[in-house]
């Protein structure tokens, strides 16, 4: 059973290969709509917008909001400041870089709770797959419609950051400029929110990114495509 909906400003694809239940898919998409209402920086009524306007205090915010903002802070420290929800230029908080992946992680947990063991949740090209075999193409950074590599996995979160990344260009928070020498960074691992933040940070580091990805925590692997065409992968990156 497959469903595609536009939520959070992007297409979200949920494919369940076992025990398809449309009530379960309803719950998953209800969850994404809740996340959009709560976290969107484009919606004036979201808790993030209200926090940014000073109309809501952190103590009164939804537990999920407190959790995500806390995790953003941990990831900022873990990435030497290259993933920074506060680097918006105007002092506002923008946890969008974590919210997408984190909400997919939670959606996967909903599917698990409903008994599914073979599914994919794909939010705008960053995804979690589980069960059976999934072949995931990694977008070629220079040639549209082509894949650069293929990853094959049965249980994986995978996120790709690149200069083409949707909605915004990834900037180095320390300089405010776009990184040079790197075209895209793909990170795989157990959690999508974390993998996505690592991919964003490694991309923002530019040519220093690959060396940093070599020291990612256990379970996380990375592949960096450099502007000169070199592809640098960590030891256990699951490319076919």
């Amino acid at each position, binding site marked *: *059973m*497959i469903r*595609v*909906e*536009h939520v959070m*400003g*992007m*297409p979200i*694809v949920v*494919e369940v290969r076992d025990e398809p239940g449309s009530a379960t898919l309803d719950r998953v998409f209800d969850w994404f709509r809740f996340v959009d209402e709560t976290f969107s920086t484009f919606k004036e009524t979201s808790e993030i917008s209200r926090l940014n306007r000073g109309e809501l205090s952190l103590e009164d915010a939804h537990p999920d909001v407190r959790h995500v903002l806390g995790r953003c802070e941990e990831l900022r420290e873990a990435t030497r400041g290259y993933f920074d929800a506060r680097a918006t230029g105007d002092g506002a908080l923008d946890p969008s870089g974590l919210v997408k992946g984190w909400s997919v992680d939670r959606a996967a947990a909903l599917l698990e709770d409903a008994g599914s063991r073979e599914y*994919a949740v*794909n939010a*705008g*090209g*960053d*995804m979690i*797959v589980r069960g059976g075999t*999934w*072949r*995931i*193409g*990694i*977008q070629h*950074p220079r040639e*549209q*419609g*082509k*894949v650069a590599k*293929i*990853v094959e996995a049965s249980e994986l979160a*995978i*996120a*790709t*950051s*690149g200069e*083409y*990344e*949707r*909605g915004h260009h990834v900037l180095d928070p320390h300089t405010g400029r776009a990184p040079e020498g790197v075209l*895209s960074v*793909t990170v795989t691992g157990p959690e999508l929110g974390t993998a996505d933040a690592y991919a964003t940070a490694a991309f923002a580091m530019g040519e220093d990114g690959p060396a940093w990805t070599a020291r990612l925590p256990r379970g996380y692997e990375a592949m960096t495509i450099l502007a000169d065409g070199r592809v640098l992968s960590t030891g256990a990156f699951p490319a076919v």
Partner: protein
Amino acid sequence: MRKSAIVLLTVTALAVPNVEAYAATKAQKTAPKKKVVTVTQSFTGVPGSADRWGEVQVTIVVKKTTTTIVKTKKKTVTRRISSVSVPVYPNHTSRSIFINQQALPYLVQETLQAQGANIDMVSGATYTSQGFETSLQSAVLKEKAA
């Protein structure tokens, strides 16, 4: 001598239907009776956003061939995208028209070439082709679910 030759020939002649029968049995073993059903149908994806340029929508025509082995009822399905069209694409500025005149035929061509790669999903997507990929992917998924 002659008689035996006739006998031999007769044997040979008698053997012909036997060979045919054997061939028929063998043919049944290697190529069992099949029922082949071909359905050609078009599927339109959800509109994909090409960011500030607007929306892209892709329609694919898929030729689906279902081969059923009559005896075992075992089914094999092959799918082939036979054409890709883009009924909705950003065209509100001369620049977006230019981009799409350049990019869309290329993307269509790439789609037809890439289907051999047998990929379930794509991680990351280019800025301009994002909407195209999105819409294409949903059209392909709709076809699979049909």
